[in-house]
């Protein structure tokens, strides 16, 4: 009988202790996670410019989600990494004869995050290393998402740089 009562009490204790569990994060944990996510999203922009400066198309493509869409201009809406890669390869930024340094005004970067989704907008200032002049100024607004613990671009839309206003 003692064994029966003991077993029953253990069962009861386990069941009741399981009821009291909570997996909600504290506010500070949420803020920390948000800051961490915003930093990770901003790193997309950094890698974006690094890929153009180094003319590293693979690094550029590593920033896009497999089924990402991109609109580069009139009639240039494509989907999937391969189509996006082809557009970039035809751009001057990735030509062998081009020696551009891609830079960006950090104060014009804007990122938001909500859970596993976010947005990112930034400008691109292409500086010709031979002439030491600004070759082009453009911009991009993107949707990003956390996929397999990495923040990737799911939709990219190119734009006229705000600097030109």
């Amino acid at each position: 009988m003692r064994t029966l009562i003991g077993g029953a009490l253990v069962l009861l204790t386990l069941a009741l202790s399981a009821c009291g569990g909570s997996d909600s994060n504290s506010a500070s944990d949420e803020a920390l996670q948000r800051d961490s996510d915003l930093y990770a999203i901003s790193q997309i922009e950094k890698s974006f410019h690094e890929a153009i400066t180094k003319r590293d198309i693979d690094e550029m493509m590593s920033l896009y989600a497999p089924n990402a869409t991109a609109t580069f201009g009139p009639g240039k809406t494509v989907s999937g990494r391969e189509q996006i890669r082809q557009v970039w390869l035809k751009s001057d930024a990735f030509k062998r004869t081009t020696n551009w340094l891609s830079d960006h005004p950090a104060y014009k970067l804007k990122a938001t995050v909500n859970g596993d989704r976010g947005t990112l907008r930034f400008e691109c200032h292409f500086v010709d290393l031979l002439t030491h002049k600004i070759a082009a100024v453009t911009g991009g607004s993107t949707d990003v998402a956390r996929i397999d613990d990495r923040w990737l671009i799911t939709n990219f839309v190119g734009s006229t740089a705000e600097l030109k206003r």
Partner: protein
Amino acid sequence: MSANVPQQGPTAGAATRRLLTPADNPLVRAVGRIPAGVHAKLLVAFGGVALLVVVLGALGLRLLGQSNERVDTLGTLQQRAFAYGKLRSDALYVRTLWAQNVGGDYYTVFPDLNREDFSADGPVIDRLIKSAATQIPASTFPDNLGFVPPPEDEVFLKRIRSTGRELSEVMRQIVDIDLVAPKRATSLRYRAELLTIDLSQHATELANTTRKRTNALIAENAGAYTSSRNLLVGAAAGTIVLALLLGFVLSWSLIGPIQRIDSRLAAIASGNFSGHVDVTNRDELGALAANVNRMNDELQRLYRELETASRHKSEFLANMSHELRTPLNAIIGFSQVLRDGLFGEVNAKQEEYLEDILTSGHHLLALINDVLDLSKVEAGQVQLELAPFSIEDALERGVSMVREQATRNGVQVTLHANDGLHVVTGDERRVRQVIFNLLSNAVKFTSAGGSVDVTATRANGEVRVSVADTGPGITEDDLGRIFEEFQQTEAGARQHEGTGLGLALSKRFVEMHGGRIWCDSEVGKGSTFVFTIPAAAVGR
């Protein structure tokens, strides 16, 4: 009276065994001591179990209600997520449309873009953007959304609304300028492009926020389900445990005393009055136990009195038999001497009276001997003297003892002793006494011309002797009592012969040998008395 009364208290083994029984659980005994009737205790127990079930049901309903509320909230959130997703889609459409009108250095970076297309389609796209942008603010109101957005959503919706209106206005100006000189609206275009970006970002942020809330609620639902399930399982387990505990305690508070009382009654039935039943219950069972203890004490007192009375009776009978037999022997002896004329001739009248004295004296002596024997048997003072003897010889001696009387009565006595009876082990004197009793009864009750057949056989390790007569037979009622002391048939009573102790003694002697005795009879046709004894009796 010679019952063997075991006078022993509870043994150490029994005490240890009792300590290990659930009935000795302190909780069980505590429930037993509650001053309430069994009915009240059962009522409380069943009420308690019913209450536990009700509590469990109420808890289940509460959890079900909470789950239902969460499902409702989730449904609302999903409705909002769908509406905001469409809003985002519209904003992205405007944004994508504007990308068709992208300007600035874009064509420097992407030289394969056809700028001429822009020149041709630009005004058309501008009008499309204007139309789309005009619709977006209207889509943010409850009438079009299909629900009243919560305050946290309203912040985003206001931004979308104002941005959409501003974009609509800018696009109206661009469309107006397009009619005159499309390329002059450069600064407005930059403004419009920025607004499309803002618009899509606001809409996307709202959609993402709602999506995040939806996901969080789904996760919360999953967690709440787990918690609810655990709570319900825990409560159900607790209810079961409490119900089992209640059942265990209550049942053993009843079973324990019943077992103790049963054990005590069994001991009383076997003649052990030394103990008392230990029941601490303050209910009907406690009262029953107290009555059993009182009954035990009363029976013990009565038993001791009976024992004493029986001993006194046996002693009295033995003493009286001895005291009676001594003068009786003198009476018989001197009567016989007088009748035989050793002290002179007696006349016929005197001889007749002397014969009466002798007959009465012999009858009285036989009666006293039988009473003495019976007393000794009942007092356990008779020990069989076991020895091998010939049953056939015993039968022949018995027959010879009654032959004279049989001849006088005109009764034929025949002995049928099968071969192979051999020697049996028993108390020859007692067996011969049984044979003589049966034979003398048979001869006595058989009329002239009748017969008495004595048959002896041996089979299955026992000897079977039957004495069949052609006498008047014994009625069904008499058959049931002829082996009891001082019981006679109607015929026996009429003859005023016999003591009524012969068959009782015969029965005891046969049973002391480990055998049986019985009678089959039919009124008007005769009786057959049968007894068996083991071929090698061990005595009892």
